[in-house]
């Protein structure tokens, strides 16, 4: 094969692999959704218990890290934005710019990165290990649907956690950031809050909700999908985790951009 042909074949194979991964995750999402519709009322309690554990691990255990990140980021962003705006004599727009920056983009994106780093990796590794240990097979053979008992709680838990963490992140970044920035800048809290209140509208709340649900559903699904593809050897686990993280980051950046364009134009 010629050099150009070999290069084209490599690009083709890579594209095929990427499309196969997207297809596999989409297929899994459909299967989880269909299986969730068939959950019986007497199974809800068991699934709720697993979901609660997932929320505890993904949201509650990550809260301190998220708040700390938000506080630092909010303070630094506010300082940077203020210094730029004051150069133009436009300090009055500080709250509006902060609200747009944090609520629309930074909040959801950074929370998603925290969740991918903490919980996405854990989900991929856990499911890969469950597959290798025969736990998934045992569940199937017993008649316990892993889509209902293992995957649905992780997806629902991911959505609840992501949404909750984004709200906490936004609040900490906007308010905490203000207090951090106030150590160096002469800012008025009442002025800042009033301007913030007028800058936050329905669109900001909608994008927070949408990004929370989309990121929260996509990350566990992609990570689970890569984890479940492990077949024979424990050495596949770190590879699956790496692929899951890369795919999740790409999915979050892409879907985040699409949602922002769709809502704000």
């Amino acid at each position: 094969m010629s050099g150009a042909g070999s290069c084209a074949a490599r690009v083709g194979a890579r594209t095929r692999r990427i499309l196969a991964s997207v297809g596999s995750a989409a297929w899994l999402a459909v299967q989880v959704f269909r299986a969730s519709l068939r959950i019986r009322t007497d199974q809800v309690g068991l699934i709720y218990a697993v979901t609660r554990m997932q929320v505890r691990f993904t949201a509650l255990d990550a809260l301190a890290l998220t708040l700390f990140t938000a506080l630092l980021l909010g303070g630094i962003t506010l300082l940077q934005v203020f210094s730029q705006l004051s150069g133009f004599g436009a300090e009055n727009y500080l709250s509006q710019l902060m609200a747009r920056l944090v609520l629309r983009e930074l909040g959801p994106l950074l929370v998603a990165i925290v969740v991918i780093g903490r919980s996405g990796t854990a989900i991929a590794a856990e499911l890969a290990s469950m597959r290798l240990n025969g736990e998934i097979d045992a569940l199937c053979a017993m008649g316990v649907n892993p889509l209902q008992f293992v995957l649905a709680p992780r997806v629902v838990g991911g959505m609840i956690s992501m949404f909750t963490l984004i709200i906490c992140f936004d609040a900490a970044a906007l308010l905490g950031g203000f207090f951090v920035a106030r150590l160096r800048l002469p800012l008025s809290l009442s002025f800042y809050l009033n301007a913030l209140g007028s800058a936050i509208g329905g669109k900001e709340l909608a994008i927070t909700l949408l990004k929370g649900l989309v990121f929260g559903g996509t990350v566990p699904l992609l990570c689970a999908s890569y984890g479940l593809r492990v077949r024979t050897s424990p050495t596949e686990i770190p590879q699956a985790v790496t692929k899951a993280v890369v795919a999740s980051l790409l999915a979050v950046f892409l879907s985040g951009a699409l949602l922002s364009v769709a809502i704000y134009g």
Partner: protein
Amino acid sequence: MAELARLEDIHLRSLEGRAVFDALDWSTPFGARYRLLGPSGSGAPDLLRLLAGLLHPDRGQVILDGVPVDGQALSHPFIQRGKLGWVPSNGGLLVNQTLTVNLALPLAFVQGVHSAEAEAMAMEAMEAAGIGPLAQLRPHAMELSQRWLAGLVRASLMRAELWLIEAPPGDLDARTRKRARRVLDQAVDAKAALIVLGEGAWSPDTLQAWQLEDGRIAPWEEP
């Protein structure tokens, strides 16, 4: 005798492309007591996985209780009813749950028994099998043979009709062997079929032996 499970014209290749089964036909009637023998690579574990719906043949079909296992095993009514007693070598227990939760899970999830009641039933079964003191332990804190025994107890709780039991890990000590035999004696009723691999806890003379070799299966004959 009526058939509980049937393998029809099964063709299966290993991941490396080697033919494991080539046009294999075999049936298991209700009440069967079978033991599978064969050299390493003969496909005995694969045969068990085929019957459990965990492995799909390249060609041919697996029929459980009169219904073919197509696509996802989970959609098969026999498996959905929790009537398959799958006991892998490692017990197949969830590592992040206690033994009690592991044993109560299928009762609660599949058969709709209330969680508290399912846990009480699991506790009773564990006491009867002599593993009561392990109830609050997670599998990684238990010996391998105890996990395998727990797998047997879990299948007994479900009143399985088709038992597929892999060989226990290593040699069983006399006490675990006795406990496993007691579980099987009490749980495997006359109607249920039992297919086992290896020596395990059972008396070889009570089981009909089948020899797997070169992708074929035949009644074992003493050399």
